[in-house]
């Protein structure tokens, strides 16, 4: 069965839980996406920009010293080498090309770590569109370099002061903007979250990661890997790399942020510790209290600091198609440091969660073939890490 169904459901997850004002915009987006998904010109243009602008295909790099250390054969999918420094650009190019065809001149987006904001501001500059990025006030502080990047790219960055002042609140505010300016505005959602058709559309734009891995690993090793590991906040890089390997023998592992620990109540692991609920227009696992109030997530990595998760991940979890683990702030920091020193690659703190999971996976995966999605690079996290290491920049 191909998911989602015609109403955007992955089993009981997904759907469209939005104010009536947006129903027309979602229907238009769905119709446009359906049309252009199969359109030759659209796909050629998308391929062109992915190749010549974003820098695809990204390498699948055999991490020799990391492999030696863990006694397994470890490859890194180098999404950190994409233009703007993370996989997010795959999706923003796709959505911006769609916006252009839908004749929407104004672009809005939410951002947590700032990677999606930068990737959106980048394509808005590339295609000459007016761009407004909502970012939690807390995140504008943690990710100051990305705020400057967005501004340099010509975007307006709007700090959000409501709620926990992080990604979820930025997304609320972006949805409110969309409700208000729906006629001329295209909302580029950065993850496989939000109402239908976003989870499916963003997934489709990120599948390029997994398709490349399939080709590259077969060239290198003549077979599929035994494991694929990726971090999960909203879950777009994970779904992108997992999707072509679903229902195969490859073991797929998503890594959520355990923050201060799963039992601390301060984490970003809705699949491990949340309940089913509705957030930002779709049904999925959500961190919430007994009355359904959404609780604040916590992760050292702003990109994983989100109380929800893409609905298709909830479906994967319920059907055992992907297994999900978690990594604490401390473990992620250790991996951040370790990868920098063993491979000369400074990973994003988000991706450091996937790297850190090797510590748990390797003992039972001796001699196995593992692919880790290195979804982004760590330049944006230098201030966060400097603060922890008590270094003055």
């Amino acid at each position, binding site marked *: 069965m191909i998911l989602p169904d015609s109403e955007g459901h992955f089993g009981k997850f997904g759907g469209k839980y939005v104010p009536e004002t947006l*129903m027309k915009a979602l229907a238009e987006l769905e119709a446009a996406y359906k049309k252009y998904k199969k359109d030759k010109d659209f796909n050629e243009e998308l391929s062109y920009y992915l190749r010549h602008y974003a820098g695809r295909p990204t390498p699948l790099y055999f991490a020799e010293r990391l492999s030696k250390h863990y006694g397994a054969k470890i490859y890194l999918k180098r999404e950190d080498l994409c233009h703007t420094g993370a996989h997010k650009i795959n999706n923003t190019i796709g959505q911006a090309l769609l916006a252009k065809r839908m004749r929407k001149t104004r672009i809005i987006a939410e951002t947590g770590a700032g990677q999606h904001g930068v990737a959106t501001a980048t394509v808005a500059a590339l295609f000459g569109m007016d761009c407004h990025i909502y970012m939690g006030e807390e995140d504008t502080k943690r990710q100051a370099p990305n705020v400057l990047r967005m501004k340099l790219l010509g975007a307006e960055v709007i700090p959000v002061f409501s709620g926990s002042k992080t990604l979820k609140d930025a997304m609320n505010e972006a949805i409110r903007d969309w409700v208000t300016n729906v006629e001329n505005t295209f909302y580029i959602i950065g993850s496989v979250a939000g109402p239908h058709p976003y989870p499916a559309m963003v997934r489709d734009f990120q599948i390029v990661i997994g398709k490349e891995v399939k080709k590259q690993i077969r060239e290198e090793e003549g077979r599929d890997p035994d494991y694929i590991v990726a971090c999960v906040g909203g879950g777009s890089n994970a779904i992108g790399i997992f999707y072509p390997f679903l229902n195969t023998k490859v073991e797929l592992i998503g890594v959520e942020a355990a923050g201060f620990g799963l039992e601390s109540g301060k984490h970003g692991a809705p699949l491990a510790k949340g309940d089913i609920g509705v957030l930002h227009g779709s049904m999925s696992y959500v961190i919430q209290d007994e009355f359904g109030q959404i609780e604040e997530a916590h992760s050292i990595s702003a990109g994983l600091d989100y109380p929800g998760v893409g609905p298709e991940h909830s479906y994967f979890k319920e059907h055992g198609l992907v297994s999900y683990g978690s990594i604490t702030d401390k473990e992620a920091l250790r991996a951040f440091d370790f990868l920098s020193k063993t491979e000369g690659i400074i990973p994003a703190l988000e991706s450091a969660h996937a790297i850190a999971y090797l510590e748990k996976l390797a003992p039972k995966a001796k001699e196995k073939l593992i692919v880790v999605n290195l979804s982004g690079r760590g330049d944006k996290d230098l201030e966060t890490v400097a603060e922890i290491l008590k270094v003055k920049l």
Partner: protein
Amino acid sequence: MSRIKQKFEQLKKSNNKAFIPYVMGGYPTLDACERLVEILAEQGADIIEIGIPYSDPLADGPTIQKASQVALSHGANTRNIFEMIKSLRKKMDTPLVIMTYYNTIYHYGEKRFAEEAASVGVDGVIVPDLPPEEARSWLTLAKENALDTIFLISPTSSDDRIKKIVSVSSGFVYCVSLTGVTGARKSLPSELSGFLLKIRAQTDKPLAVGFGISSGNLAKEASRLADGIIIGSALMDLIDDSSIEYDKIGKFVKNIKLAIEGS
């Protein structure tokens, strides 16, 4: 016959329009809120909407967002707001409608929510992020518990959607005056009358206009082609976080009632 339906029939007979104020449940406190609802009823509110605060109210502007946060921080929750309604129901016959987001209902348990709401004397619910497509299970439970479910129509709704929404909406139909979030505005869109006529062409159910109405003049304008008007943010703007000046509220309500009389 539901209390809401009865109310609209009464109003129609006397050639009057419904004044439907909205208050955030538990804002600024549960006690103050309960007193506020009583005052509103005394001053002639025809139907009263009571919000259950939600952490992420994405259809709401700054006023209701702030009221939700304050109410939550003062401990308001589904259970104690139901308790408040139970106490109010003993004192008044005014139709009471819950307005909240779907997750507060879903997580509480749709069945439990519907049963408890009905048992404390709630007459209907408005859930701005629950379109008819996602409302099948809720609608069954609401009907079983004799609760009206009031759906929203917006200026962007197509004719097909309007048809669908008016067919499932009970009690009344909530006509969102503008494309945007809740909040007091200085004027209403010029397309409002065309929008209401378009809906009227599809249904005989009562139409209530909400979003943006902030004064007697706008109330009058909005009520002309509808059966009632809803005022939330402008009313909440009169309340500060710690106390309510009930005199000020009384005056505001009187002014609105006067403005829509016989319109």
